[in-house]
């Protein structure tokens, strides 16, 4: 008895919310997307989506924000959303980075999640603006079949919609899906659909109402290693003696099809220049298979896990290195010093599910804080190390779902009372 009632309730709720939504859609301003072009890059295991939106203000009042919508299944895997506004035309185009923040809108249909882009200048009535949106998805390729043999290649599923999900009316839209090779097993057709080489073109589609959705499934070959760091703890220890000691604890997993697909044995870590005393070990000792190449601009550490990582296998290890402190420590006014360090994972082309950065400040530092260009969780800890009496203050930064796009600098501000 309970089941049908619930279903009916849900249906009623949806209908109600849709009705309600239509009635209050003016809150989203009367914006209109005259043209949307989406390019989905599936060549690695990090899905990169470039979305070009031409937004038009069809209402009467100026609009200062544009809302992006994502289906709930994608939001969990969303690593980063960036938006740029283009100015000027043709060769003189310049890009302005816009602020993007997740927002909650009431009565979102089907649990749609939103991100709001805050425009630099309000969009006046009848004006239009071109926005470039880049977002990255992790864990969005599902290996199918889940278990494969050694000689077979890995096939994966990618699920999305042929239509761009948007709270606005879209006049015209096209979606391009780029696969790593021409080997595409199957893909959903939503006419007009074209496939040429490594590209599948959906559209152009004309005039779709808000929240239009048309599920598609692409089954294609992707043999790139699915290197996923489940957890990475980077500890940056600042020493009074001119050294910056970095210790990085990795929990690496090959998230590809189970068992047979081999991870390329080598992983490449980009480290800052002038790195010294590098070590690479795990809980039971040193791992002898690593090479370090250094030049004046960067250092490259080539590491090999203890054993080749087949799909589903895990490995944990620690990389540690020292850096000269003067490369990273800067002085600002009022006796404050700050450390400028890279956020993100030094391993190339990896997804980090959970990244923790611990900045261990010298003993006696007061009121530290960190400035990071994107939202992270922050808190303070105390750590005891060699010859410590009161313990060192540790600024802990935590972020989930980190992709190489997050490798920007952040500042930890510390105060030295001397």
């Amino acid at each position, binding site marked *: 008895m309970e089941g049908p009632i619930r279903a009916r309730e849900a249906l009623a709720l949806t209908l109600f919310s849709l009705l309600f939504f239509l009635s209050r859609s003016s809150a989203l301003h009367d914006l209109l997307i005259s043209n949307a072009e989406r390019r989905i890059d599936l060549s690695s295991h990090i899905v990169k989506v470039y979305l070009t939106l031409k937004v038009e203000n069809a209402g009467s009042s100026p609009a200062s924000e544009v809302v992006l919508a994502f289906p709930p299944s994608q939001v969990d895997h969303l690593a980063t959303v960036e938006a740029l506004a283009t100015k000027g035309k043709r060769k003189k185009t310049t890009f302005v980075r816009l602020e993007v923040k997740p927002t909650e809108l009431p009565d979102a249909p089907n649990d749609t999640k939103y991100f709001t882009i805050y425009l630099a200048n309000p969009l006046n009535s009848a004006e239009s603006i071109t926005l470039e949106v880049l977002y990255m998805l992790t864990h969005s390729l599902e290996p199918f079949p889940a278990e494969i043999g050694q000689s077979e290649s890995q096939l994966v599923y990618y699920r999305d919609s042929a239509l761009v999900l948007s709270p606005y009316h879209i006049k015209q839209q096209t979606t391009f899906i780029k696969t790593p090779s021409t080997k595409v097993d199957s893909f959903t057709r939503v006419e007009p659909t074209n496939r040429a080489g490594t590209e599948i073109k959906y559209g152009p589609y004309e005039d779709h109402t808000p929240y239009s959705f048309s599920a598609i499934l692409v089954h294609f070959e992707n043999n790139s290693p699915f290197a996923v760091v489940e957890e990475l703890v980077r500890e940056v220890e600042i020493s009074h003696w001119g050294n910056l000691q970095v210790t990085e604890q990795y929990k690496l997993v090959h998230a590809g099809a189970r068992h047979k697909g081999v991870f390329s044995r080598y992983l490449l870590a980009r480290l800052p220049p002038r790195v010294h005393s590098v070590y690479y070990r*795990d*809980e*039971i*000792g*040193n*791992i*002898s298979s690593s090479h370090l190449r250094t030049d004046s601009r960067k250092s490259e550490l080539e590491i090999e896990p*203890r*054993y080749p990582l087949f799909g*589903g*296998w*895990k*490995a*944990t290890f620690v990389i540690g290195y020292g850096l000269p402190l003067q490369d990273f420590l800067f002085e600002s006014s009022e006796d404050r010093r700050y450390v400028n360090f890279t956020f993100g994972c030094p391993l190339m082309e990896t997804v980090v599910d959970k990244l923790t950065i611990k900045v261990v400040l010298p003993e006696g530092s007061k009121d530290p804080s960190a400035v990071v260009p994107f939202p992270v969780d922050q808190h303070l800890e105390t750590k*005891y*190390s*060699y*010859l*410590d*009496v009161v313990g060192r203050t540790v600024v802990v930064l935590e972020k989930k779902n980190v992709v190489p796009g997050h490798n920007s600098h952040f500042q930890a501000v510390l105060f030295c009372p001397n």
Partner: protein
Amino acid sequence: MSSMISSDLLKPFKLKTKQQELLIRVSILCLVYILAFITRLFSVLRYESMIHEFDPYFNYRTTLYLTQNGFYDFWNWFDSESWYPLGRIIGGTLYPGLMVTAALIYRLLHFLRFAVHIREVCVLTAPFFASNTTLVAYFFGKEIWDSGAGLVAAILIAVCPGYISRSVAGSYDNEGVAIFALLFTFYLFVKAVNTGSLAWGLASAFGYFYMVSAWGGYVFIINLIPLYVLVLLITGRYSMRLYVAYNCMYILGMLLAMQIRFVGFQHVQSGEHMAAMGVFFLMQVFYFLDWVKHMLSDTKLFQAFLKITVTFAVAVGAVALGVGMVSGYISPWTGRFYSLLDPTYAKDHIPIIASVSEHQPTAWSSFMFDFHILLFLFPAGLYFCFKRLSDATIFIVMYGLTSLYFAGVMVRLILVATPAVCLISAIAVSATVKNLTVLLRSKNKVVQTGSTKGTSSGKASSKASLDQSQPFQKNGAMALLFGAFYLLSKYATHCTWVTSEAYSSPSIVLAARGAHGNRVIFDDYREAYFWLRQNTPPDAKVMSWWDYGYQITAMGNRTVIVDNNTWNNTHIATVGRAMSSYEDEAYEIMRSLDVDYVLVVFGGVTGYSSDDINKFLWMVRIGGGVFPVIREPDYLVNGEYRVDKGAAPKMLNCLMYKLSYYRFGELVTEYGRPPGYDRARGVEIGNKDIKLEHLEEAFTTSNWIVRIYKVKPPNNRW
């Protein structure tokens, strides 16, 4: 000579001779202390700071547990990760001395704000205690001879390979602290005998307690000391000092030792400890007789009384022992003890003891390897000891002779003999050098006294300079001094060479020379263990031969069926039986033990010779010892063990053979050889077409040294 040099240097300080001597002595001791430590660091510098071999991994794991969970949890720890499904009561079956020592050092360092990892503490515990042993050797040498002999003893023991073999950095084993404890206890006891002081007796009781807590070798102390006391009694050297020292040491030491759960009431219940108790009662009888003799002035009466008392005492003792034995209150001697007294015993009766390489009788070459010139200096030292017989020298002579006998029975007991050999040799060196220098430095007028002494001892030790006229005597002494110097420097280079070449490899990481002279590292063990740790379910049970049990639990963090604590012979025999059965029979056994993974060590690709195929006959023997189904001749052809085409059919199809050589027939290991050429045994294998029915290959390391197989679940019946 050295004092002359230093007196030149130190002129401005104007030290008195005695102060100079003290300064030199202290600085030599400091240098020796440092030397003993750093000569053991080869493995850390060449490989890394890591735990070596097999047993140390268990010790490391328990120490880790101790530091993480505290002493009480450690003491009451029931380990379900080993000896599945039996488990092991860790607190009651180990000697906790080493772990507690390391944990205390760790706590102390952390209290002093040194944030070291417990692994570093464990790695460096053995060298640290070796350094302390040199100090004890100095004081011991000083006690039995003079400070010169003490210094020489400290230097000799600091670098002696017999000791280094068990105390390099990373060999975190009981012996590392136990040799220190052993020598320390002996020193304190000798000191107590020499002084008759209750304080020293008490100290030796505590030393004994530490030794009991650290190593099963304490049985040596509890038998040697009564034997020594007995010898003193027989030779008429009974004294009040001896009475005080022995009684205090025995009673308190026994009570303290009972606090160690693993030892428990053995001091009063086990046959191995009965000698000490017998001597204890004998002492009382002796004392009583002494008192009676003192009271009775009549010798005839006393003789009669003596007869009655001695007969009575012996009779009571014999009856008590007999009743104890029969009623089972006193346990008979254990197999290990028997195998010490009778070297052939283990071979016939306990294959599990005989299968361990360090329990083999010692070859002459390893004596030479481990002692070098000490082997020649030892008899010379004995001569000096006999020449100046005292309570202390009798002790060191007895210690030397008994331990040397045991060293001959078992390779690993060379370790116990090393301190004695070093001390006695130090006496020889010190006495010879002293006599020679006295001869050299003596002006003509002193020649009469010094020279006669000097030549005689010089003769005894080197047999080179015979009676010569005065002018040549000095030259002869000079030559002998140079000879001694040459020998000692040879000793130093030999020790360093042995340490660097033979005793500093962790055995868990193998190093070899590549084709171009570069160093190739085989890190397969850790590769496999880490794979187990990361990619198998946390409750997976791993079956392997017992050698690898400790390493799998410590590094792989997985449950094992048997490990190096060979307490249950039947369980080990079951594993041996599984390994030597056909696959379907083995599958039944493995199912009954809930085995999920089977791990074998295989050297056929790399030519690593201590692999499971070479150990296989021991598995057959141990398995066959309990299960008569397994018969050794089934695996041999005309008494010959082979793996090629001519091998026995049972051999070619047993589980161990299959697991070792699975898919090996496809592999070309050496250029110009047929595929399936086993480099460890130098033959082409006999069964190249191996099919596995109930197992599947799960992981093989890069050099094939460790191979892990997964036991498949049973087939569906329908």
